[in-house]
């Protein structure tokens, strides 16, 4: 087993275990902190796949902004943040069955891929993935249109948020 595989297995175990804790823990604040661990594990996976930019953006956006917002909102809602009562419903087996079916389907789909079982190719030295990504995002024959549409959408959301939050002038 190579070092990469060891790290991947440890990391996958961490993600799955923490994901389980997110849905089973009774304290809301603990659930959001376990979610942070899950997101961090995914960032490590990106780093193993030599996508350093994605890994760091994952930490900045998901942990630095979204998870912090979650925790902030949770802290402001209730004083006693403990859930009481049973954590399952009587029909819990239906989504579990669907989940299992999707998992089996995904496993077959991945095994069927031609790239299955191959080791990742090394990015040759001198290729700046970050620069290539940046150029692809703004070049007309690549992703400039989706990029700009997403920017306008975000700007509209920003303006909308400011409009809703601003005090009405009589």
């Amino acid at each position, binding site marked *: 087993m*190579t*070092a990469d595989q060891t790290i991947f297995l440890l990391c996958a175990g961490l993600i799955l275990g923490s994901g389980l804790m997110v849905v089973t823990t009774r304290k809301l*604040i603990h659930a959001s*902190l376990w979610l*942070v661990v899950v997101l961090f594990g995914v960032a490590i996976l990106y780093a193993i796949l030599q996508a*350093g*930019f994605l890994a*760091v*953006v994952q*930490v*900045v956006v998901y*942990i*630095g*902004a979204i*998870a*912090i917002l979650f*925790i*902030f909102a949770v*802290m402001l809602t209730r004083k006693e943040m403990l859930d009481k009562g049973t954590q399952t419903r009587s029909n819990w087996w239906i989504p579990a069955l669907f989940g299992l079916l999707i998992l089996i389907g995904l496993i077959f789909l991945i095994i069927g891929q031609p790239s299955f079982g191959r080791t990742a190719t090394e990015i040759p030295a001198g290729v*700046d*993935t*970050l620069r290539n990504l940046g150029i692809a995002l703004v070049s007309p024959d690549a992703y400039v249109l989706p990029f700009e549409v997403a920017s306008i959408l975000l700007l509209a959301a920003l303006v909308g948020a400011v409009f809703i939050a601003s005090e009405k002038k009589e």
Partner: protein
Amino acid sequence: MNFLNDPINFISAWLRGLLTGWGLSNGLTTVIIYLIGITILIVFAMVLDIALVWVERKVVARFQDRLGPNRIGPFGLIQPFADIIKLIIKEDITPSGADKLLYNLGPVLAMASVIILWAILPLSSKVFGVDLNIGLLYLVAAGALGTLSILVAGWASNNKYALLGAFRMVANMISYEIPMVVALLIPTILADTMSVQGITQAQSGMWFAILSPLALLIFLISAIAELGRSPFDLNEAESEIVAGFHIEYSGMKFGLFYAGELLHAFTFGGFMAVLFFGGYGGFFGLEKIGLFSWLNNPFIQVVVFLAKAMFGYWVIMWIKYSMPRIRIDHMLAFNWKFLTPLALVVLVTTAILSKVLAGLPTWGYVLGMFFSNLVIGFITVEIMRGYGRKQRRTEMGLPPQKIQNKEQAV
């Protein structure tokens, strides 16, 4: 390759030869060498931290017209060790109702969020942790972990003052992250890379502090806000919320927060040196002359880097002990209505000018950049002056009209 020109690689090659000679596999040897390297870097940072405590206490004493620690050892040099012993043998108190695991995790995370920054800090061209091509983004990501640590510490303490302090700190850090990211983009544009080594090498001829003084100012202000030091120390405003997020921590757990803050300040001083003062280099081309080629020696470079970082640390201390704490609404208004728009204007101007002036000779490029910053700074000051005058006039019940002569000016 010899020890004086490339110490780290020399030692690592020697260790590799030794370990593989013992029959260890190549992969395991790499892991062991990296672990040793990481340990040495962390130990270096922590030992430096002890020195920083002494520097901080001596410098603040001078600012406040005192002598500072001077009883134990020459110039009080042994005082930090006495402090450490005191912190270690203090009673370790966990408040009732505290979330034990998170309560203990808080200080560790706070220290770790600083230590991981040292991974990308370029001490010299040969002595550094790793040269990421996303270095500056990594700096922002480490800040996100710092925010998390304070939120966790404040919540887990089960104390309303701690929680209030944590809330204030998070509001502070999240809002000042925006001008900081924009300010970080300016060296990125000027150097055409995000790697800290690349940015340092791009400044061998001219410091970015001269090309873009406004970006330096914005970075300094938002770095102080991110550190939570005065004038942005609302998180521990002792006259309002006693001590903020670390109110319940005692002994070495408090010590970790304190040491983490000092090391964080020094690390930001280091990043200021890297981004705007040429890092370990930046001798304006002096090192290319044969007589001064010793400036390229990694040991000299480490000394130069630490001196520049210490200067940044001193500036942050200077501001801390000269400014009163600002109110929270002023803090937010200053960020959103002043710092963020200014940072965006500087960014757009720099981006356009770096393309327009690219064809000019170096002196034209430098002068153009510098004067564009001066013009933006002048316009900003004028706008602020007009706004302040209008506000003062409305407070006095005068119409916010134009001033006809000097006597009417308020």
